[in-house]
């Protein structure tokens, strides 16, 4: 090899060789102007000093003999620009060329007429390639698609054996000498670092050089057999010689442990083997229900380079079937009603659902919400009545009659209330037997919350007493009802307030409750004395739902905090505008996304879509509008329509014809899922009013609901 010989390629298509050994100032040796376009690459033959190969934008490769003035042979790629050419290190006659259209061609230098083989390596231009210095069959290529691929050329079809995904288009690849699996890369845009990868570990570079301030334009290993020195040039006008031990190793900064929960509560944990083995002797979690069921160990063959020693252990801990069961989640998701009915009904329904699944606290919450929010209308109307009839002793009775007569919902409400009263008693029974629900946190019961909850439970069970008491001596009742101290599982929500024993809150809360009860249920005549107190309490309650917003908000936050984002989101949807402004958008969005994610993991697609649809959060709402693809089949030939248009490729028919008017439907298209005929919404509606058969005449009995 001639140390003094240098070849350069220029953007104007000139290939120049320089001889540094020349005594004159001008070291230029040869000048070839055969290429018409920019020359992208020149390459010396690894053993023949005088043989030089060039690849150009014009699609030609030329082989020059430096002892002659002109090129010896010209190879035409028959396609777009040549981006790189490389002589094979082992095969004397072979060279590889990469092209802008993603192809790689292999040529025999003796046969300029056609390539030996060709394969598509990348999507988009292949910027570079490099033959493996030891293994004759390996060729690495890098492309604009940000991939580095290693091809095994020994087989008849080039086979991709390794693939490394980088973060930017790959401008240069260079195998590291003496290390079979190491390859250095640099990129053309955006990313200025040089990476050295172990191709078997494609996810994290084994070494990284971060010196350059601008794009790295070229890299080369300093010596054919020295793996420790790397030279690099850059657009920041610097040339660096990197010593391998200076390289930063991203692996040091990476977190080598991984932890993941499965849907069903199983826990997988992967970590460096050394960590695991040192720990494995001692029992990690005493008294844990979980136990490892799976233990896998992977060892790499020994390597001379330290970075390689990558082996990790994966343990999977399985949870008890019952304790980890998420059935309640699925059931709840399926049964909850989120919209379409008056608030009170929704709340009652959901409370029932929750109760049916032994989730008493959630049930309580729903009940409370109904009480807080849904009786607003009644409050105002009673207030009205009240002020009209003030001073009259017969008023209480009148009042209750009026209430009865108020048509919408009220009657049912009182009925519901009764039923709730019943269920509550059984509820208490159950609670006292302290059935645990699968939630983790139900083990820790907050004692202080207990009496309060009990109180609230009872408030509704015997309203009359409470009603009286509430106004006459509000404090007595607290003592009285805090007596039963059985631990019953309690999630604090509602309860927050009374438990604090805060006078202000107390006043706000209990009179309200009792007031409502009075209106809706109690038909008992009351003396005029207490009447005044009613009206008093009612006046206090004129602003109630707003007043309770902070508490409801805290409740929701509490549930979300506990991990029960389902409740939080469901309440959020049901209450809608009543509570929306209380909670900041981001939190809401976060809840929604978590809940939707959970639903989708349980494959509850319909419900997740319903949630998306009902959400008032803009970011969530538009989820289904973006990135939603409807795949449709042609109604004629029943094959999928590949076009974005409405014309079927195959049968040349317009797919969305109205079966009634035989015109194309633009806008709303309705179709029967039984026979797949359909058309304009109006037309179909009209048709099916008079006929029960499909307008297309297929004989299907369509139904429009």
């Amino acid at each position, binding site marked *: 090899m001639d140390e003094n010989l240098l070849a350069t390629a*220029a*953007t*104007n*298509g000139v290939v120049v060789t320089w001889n540094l050994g020349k005594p004159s100032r001008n070291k230029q040796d040869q000048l070839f*102007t055969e*290429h*018409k*376009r*920019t020359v992208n690459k020149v390459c010396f033959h690894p053993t023949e000093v005088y043989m030089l190969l060039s690849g150009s*934008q014009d699609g030609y490769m030329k082989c020059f003999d430096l002892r002659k003035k002109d090129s010896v042979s010209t190879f035409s790629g028959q396609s777009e620009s040549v981006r790189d050419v490389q002589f094979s290190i082992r095969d004397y006659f072979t060279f590889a060329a990469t092209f*802008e259209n993603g192809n790689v061609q292999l040529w025999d230098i003796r046969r300029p007429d056609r390539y030996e083989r060709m394969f598509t390596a990348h999507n*988009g*231009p292949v*910027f570079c390639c490099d033959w493996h210095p030891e293994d004759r069959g390996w060729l690495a290529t890098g492309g*604009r698609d940000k991939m580095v691929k290693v091809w095994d050329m020994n087989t008849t079809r080039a086979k991709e054996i390794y693939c490394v995904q980088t973060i*930017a*288009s790959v401008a240069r690849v260079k195998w590291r000498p003496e290390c079979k699996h190491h390859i250095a890369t640099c990129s*053309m*845009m*955006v990313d*200025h670092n040089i990476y050295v990868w172990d191709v078997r570990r494609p996810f994290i570079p084994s070494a990284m050089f971060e010196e350059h*301030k*601008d*794009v790295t334009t070229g890299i080369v290993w300093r010596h054919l057999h020295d793996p420790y020195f790397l030279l690099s040039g850059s657009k920041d006008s610097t040339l660096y010689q990197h010593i391998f031990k200076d390289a930063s190793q991203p692996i040091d900064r990476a977190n080598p442990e991984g932890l993941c929960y499965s849907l069903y509560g199983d826990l997988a944990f992967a970590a460096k083997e050394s960590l695991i083995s040192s720990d494995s002797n001692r029992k990690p979690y005493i008294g844990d229900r979980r136990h490892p069921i799976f233990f896998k160990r992977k060892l790499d063959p020994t390597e001379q380079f330290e970075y390689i020693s990558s082996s990790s252990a994966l343990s999977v801990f399985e949870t008890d079937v019952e304790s980890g069961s998420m059935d309640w989640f699925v059931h709840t998701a399926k049964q909850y009603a989120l919209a379409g009915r008056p608030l009170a009904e929704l709340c009652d329904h959901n409370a029932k659902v929750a109760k049916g699944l032994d989730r008493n606290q959630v049930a309580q919450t729903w009940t409370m919400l109904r009480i807080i929010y849904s009786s607003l209308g009644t409050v105002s109307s009673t207030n009205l009545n009240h002020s009209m009839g003030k001073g009259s002793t017969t008023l209480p009775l009148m009042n209750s009659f009026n209430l009865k007569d108020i048509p919408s919902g009220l009657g049912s409400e009182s009925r519901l209330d009764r039923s709730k009263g019943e269920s509550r008693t059984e509820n208490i029974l159950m609670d006292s037997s302290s059935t645990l629900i699968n939630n983790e946190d139900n083990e820790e019961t907050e004692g202080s919350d207990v009496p309060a909850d009990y109180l609230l439970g009872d408030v509704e069970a015997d309203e009359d007493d409470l009603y009286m008491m509430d106004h006459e001596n509000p404090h007595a009742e607290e003592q009285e009802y805090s007596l039963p101290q059985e631990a019953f599982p309690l999630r604090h929500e509602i309860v927050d307030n009374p438990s604090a024993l805060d006078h202000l809150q107390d006043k706000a809360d209990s009179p309200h409750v009792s007031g409502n009860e009075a209106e809706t249920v109690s038909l008992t005549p009351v003396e005029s004395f207490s009447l005044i107190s009613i009206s008093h309490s009612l006046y206090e309650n004129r602003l109630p739902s707003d007043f309770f917003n902070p508490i409801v908000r805290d409740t929701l936050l509490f549930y979300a905090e506990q991990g029960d984002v389902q409740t939080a989101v469901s309440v959020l949807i049901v209450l809608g505008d009543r509570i929306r402004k209380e909670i900041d958008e981001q939190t809401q969005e976060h809840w929604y996304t978590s809940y939707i994610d959970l639903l989708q993991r349980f494959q509850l697609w319909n419900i997740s879509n319903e949630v998306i649809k009902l959400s008032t959060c803009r970011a969530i709402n538009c989820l289904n509008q*973006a*990135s939603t693809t*409807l795949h449709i089949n042609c109604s004629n030939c029943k094959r999928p329509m590949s*076009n*974005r*248009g*409405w*014309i079927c490729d195959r049968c*040349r*028919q*317009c797919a*969305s014809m109205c079966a009634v008017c035989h*015109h*194309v*439907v*633009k*806008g*709303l*298209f*309705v*179709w*029967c*899922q*039984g026979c797949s005929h*359909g058309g304009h*919404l109006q037309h179909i509606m009209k048709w099916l009013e008079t006929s029960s058969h499909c307008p297309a005449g297929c004989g299907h009995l*369509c*139904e*429009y*609901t």
Partner: protein
Amino acid sequence: MAHHQLWKNLYGNNSRYLISLFFAGVPVCMQRSFPLFSQQPSLEKRVQVSPPLTRGPSAFIPENEVMQANGLDERTNLLVEEYSTSGRLDNITQVMSIHTQYLESFLRSQFYMLRMDGPLPLPYRHYIAIMAAARHQCSYLINMHVDEFLKTGGIAEWLNGLEYIPQRLKNLNEINKLLAHRPWLITKEHIQKLVKTGENNWSLPELVHAVVLLAHYHALASFVFGSGINPERDPDTSNGVRLIAVNNFCVCDLANDNNIENASLTSSNFGIADSLSELEALMERMKRLQEDKEDEEASQEEMDTRFEKEKKESLLVISGAFDDEIVSTDVSRYVEDPGFGYKDFARRGEDHLPTFRAQDYTWENHGFSLVNRLYSDIGHLLDEKFRMVYNLTYNTMATHEDVDTTTLRRALFNYVHCMYGIRYDDYDYGEVNQLLERSLKVYIKTVTCYPERTTKRMYDSYWRQFKHSEKVHVNLLLMEARMQAELLYALRAITRHLT
């Protein structure tokens, strides 16, 4: 139980005219693959549109020229598909459909940047299109996107003018202005100003989306004027005021012809025989360029001077024989600093701007990577479009067949870039001089730099022997070259901002 699904089509609100067009045309195509528009007379009867000013989609190209093209079958399909997706078949599409292959990639990329997932909200995209088109007073595009803007839920108030839009959009004015007229002035400081964190900042993906839209619509304006696209015959009278404005505009545009008494134009009044020999000569020159490349070995310095010369010459091509144009208020409300126009790259001797060396920042290597990184997939679409337009050929020239037009196409493409100060090291700019006659250069310069001044006479005066479809091809090349040039400057600035 029957079930129904609703299919909402965004663009459902189309005109009667188009519907009937569709039904009149399609069944025939299906039976006999007949040209879509051959049913014109019956159409006219059916919809009773007021007679248009000029028939057909273009004022420059006779209607029947637009209709007859090769690959009718494919073309019909494409048009039908386009109609069924967008609910209209605008004149641009009709004229472009002469080059079906290109049209496909054009529509795909336009569809993607306007309607598919992207960083910017839909109304924003159309408003940006309006802003871009307004730089060239292209009422055609403005009207089209005003409609789209409203349909996608844009705030009608914004249409009152730039004072009514949010500051954030307003900030885009500067870059719009530069990009449209003097893209070489865009620096990383402009980018920084937009991206700088603050109340009205742009994220990089949003900015890239906006830049792509701006460049696309500046270039499209060139095409609209260059091909003399007629206003849409849209019977939708809901915005009648604007329609009238369009018509006015078009009348004055055609009348504009008389304004130019450009020497180069009047002198090119050859007879047919002359222009025939002109064609022969051109082909002769092309052949020579292709064959004996080697015998004229120009030195690097020589090449440099040729580029400089070409740059300078592009200066002389039109010396501003134009009065300041009266911009209709209709358009001007979307324009800030209307006086800012193209100034020749070469003229600015004092503060000499460095030439943009194409190899330092190419679309394939750099532009693509950046665009695709920040606004995924648009890179591939634009890449395909550029590639398509660059390689599009039918191997014909006027009446001759089997001609390799590579050099000619390259000359056109590079000449546009040359006017924007982008230089290819591996190109001999002497070729431009040999291949592009003066009247063509006038046309190129007008269409790319101030398209609003294009006239039918300019269009007619070059390449008299060539077919209209070939002239449309030229327009496509000019449009894409211009778009690429703008993108390169803008993306380079963004790259510099990033490093």
